[in-house]
């Protein structure tokens, strides 16, 4: 199933296979997944539990490496990197947003947002400026000195988004980002992802909820470790960016055929 997306690919998976040893049995979590995701795409990865979507997310997020097949992120092959290199790639290129927020409980939220920059080796002054800007972007500039447990679920998830954004990653990888939120707060968070996409961010959502996936412009369905379907939403098919400009002679009003 090849997608003919015209945009330049941020990530490319080719025949990715992932097998786990479970006792004497081999479990195929992914059995041959090929996938391109382009810049500024808004993609939902869906599928029932056991479909391999978590495994695919882990591989895309460089938390895991494929058993076979190739994966390149931002033009760089990832499949055979060691732990330290993978940590660096995660640091620079991927912004994670988790279902359970996953903030460091003892640190204030400014420090939480600064953390990727700290591990990236950025100097203190610049780090501070960037983290503050990211928190402003998610509307939490006035809560910087609060601890995560002093915030509501929606606010915590906004902190997590700020942390994901702060190092200008190539992709934002969100795993059930609204799973622990009530529907109204969930909508707010999804609105935030929509806005980020509009600003040019590449976003990958992993979800099993259709109404969340509906925010994305492309949805990839997995079943039994294979891609079952990969479709663009109607809006996207009709958008300028997908269609691109017509050759001048086909534009309405351009055909001055005498």
């Amino acid at each position: 199933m090849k997608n003919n997306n015209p945009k330049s690919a941020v990530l490319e998976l080719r025949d990715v296979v992932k097998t786990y040893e479970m006792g004497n049995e081999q479990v195929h979590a992914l059995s041959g997944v090929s996938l391109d995701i382009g810049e500024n795409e808004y993609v939902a990865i869906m599928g029932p539990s056991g479909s391999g979507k978590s495994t695919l997310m882990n591989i895309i997020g460089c938390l895991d490496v494929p058993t076979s097949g190739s994966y390149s992120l931002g033009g760089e092959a990832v499949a055979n990197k060691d732990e330290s290199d993978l940590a660096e790639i995660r640091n620079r290129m991927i912004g994670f947003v988790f279902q359970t927020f996953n903030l460091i409980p003892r640190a204030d939220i400014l420090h939480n947002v600064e953390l990727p920059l700290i591990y990236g080796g950025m100097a203190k002054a610049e780090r501070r400026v960037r983290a503050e800007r990211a928190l402003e972007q998610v509307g939490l500039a006035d809560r910087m000195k609060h601890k995560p447990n002093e915030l509501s679920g929606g606010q915590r998830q906004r902190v997590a988004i700020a942390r994901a954004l702060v190092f200008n990653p190539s992709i934002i990888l969100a795993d059930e980002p609204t799973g622990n939120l009530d529907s109204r707060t969930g909508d707010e968070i999804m609105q935030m992802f929509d806005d980020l996409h509009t600003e040019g961010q590449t976003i990958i959502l992993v979800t099993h909820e259709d109404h969340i996936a509906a925010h994305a412009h492309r949805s990839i369905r997995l079943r039994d470790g294979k891609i079952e379907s990969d479709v663009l939403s109607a809006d996207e098919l009709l958008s300028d960016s997908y269609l691109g400009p017509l050759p001048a002679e086909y534009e309405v009003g351009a055909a001055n055929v005498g």
Partner: protein
Amino acid sequence: MNVILDTRESMKIALSAIIANKARGALTTLGIIIGIVAVTTTMTAFKGMQSSFQQAAGAVGADVVYVSRMPWITMNDFFSFRNRPNLNLEEAYKLEAAFEGRAIVSPNIDTRRDLRFRSKTLDAIPVIGTTEKMPIITNRMPEIGRFLMEFDVRYKKNTVVLGQEVAEDLFGQTSPLNKEINIGAYRFRVAGVLEKQGGSTLGGPNFDRQVFIPISTFVKAFGGRRFMDVDIAVKASKMSDLSELEYEVIGEMRKIRRLKPAEDDNFSINKLDSLLGAFNSVVGAVLAIGLLVTSISLFVGGIGVMNIMFVSVTERTREIGIRKAIGAKRRSILMQFLFESAVICMAGGFIGIAIAAGITAIINKLDLMPASLSPGIMVAAVVISALVGIVAGIVPAYKGARLDPIEALRYE
């Protein structure tokens, strides 16, 4: 990645983790505190013994050579010296004549006698027969009154100079000067009291519990000729090489005793160095055993820290997962936990030093020995506690650093 940045972050995390678990941190630290107190107090006691000994050894004199029948320190060669002749006063006077103008020679001889002043009696006090030169040789001056004079020796006067402690015990607050005391069966007039020497805590000779009388009087009163065995102190009048003096003394003594070249010396040369050497080897062994025993308590403390670090790593499995997901490398996680255990242990080290300082103050207050907590010991204690922290933390920290981020993130 920037190592300094990493360090600062690790430090911050470590501190906040310890603060978050105060009670646990305090209990864990307690083990280290006990260990550090034990080790530093042992070292302090050793230092105290050493300086106490050196203080006492001052009475021997660092630049003095003693001629005696026996060496001060005998190992198992005692029997080979058994048949040596005693040193007698004539030999001492011959040696004095030989060193005329070059060195100060003073014979000494001692025994024990009961002392009595009115109704007060002190049993078996060392009575030392000596000459007026003793203060020059041992640098001990009278605090009140005077020392023995040349005429005391020449005219066999019944004059006595008391050690500080003897004076206190016999006379209390009243002045002993010109009082008459009994030494054995003889009456002596007190001419002076020596200044305090101190440093007698180790069961060694107590230099303040002695009395001094003229050697001539001593011989007349207490010297059954057969039992006379004199020590001769020789101090170079100019500060010359001590070993050179030693060789000259040996040469003169061999001449006085008419020893043939093939014969061994039938006397011994003693000096402070040989005493110090023996002392250091004994106390060094005691220190080594003491440190071995006390480091076991430090070791147990370290095991406590290791245990708590394993708990800490397990508790924060999810946090490790988060940190790894957003880009922490193994090294960063390793550093974080190493810092935590080093900080716990160093805190223990500092508190331990404070407590050891308290104990040292108490020892000094009770006047047990001149103990002091030296900066060297303090620095060593901090370094040792940091090392214990790093050694105790390394396995738990490595375990944390090696966690798989996916599994760590899934950990509840």
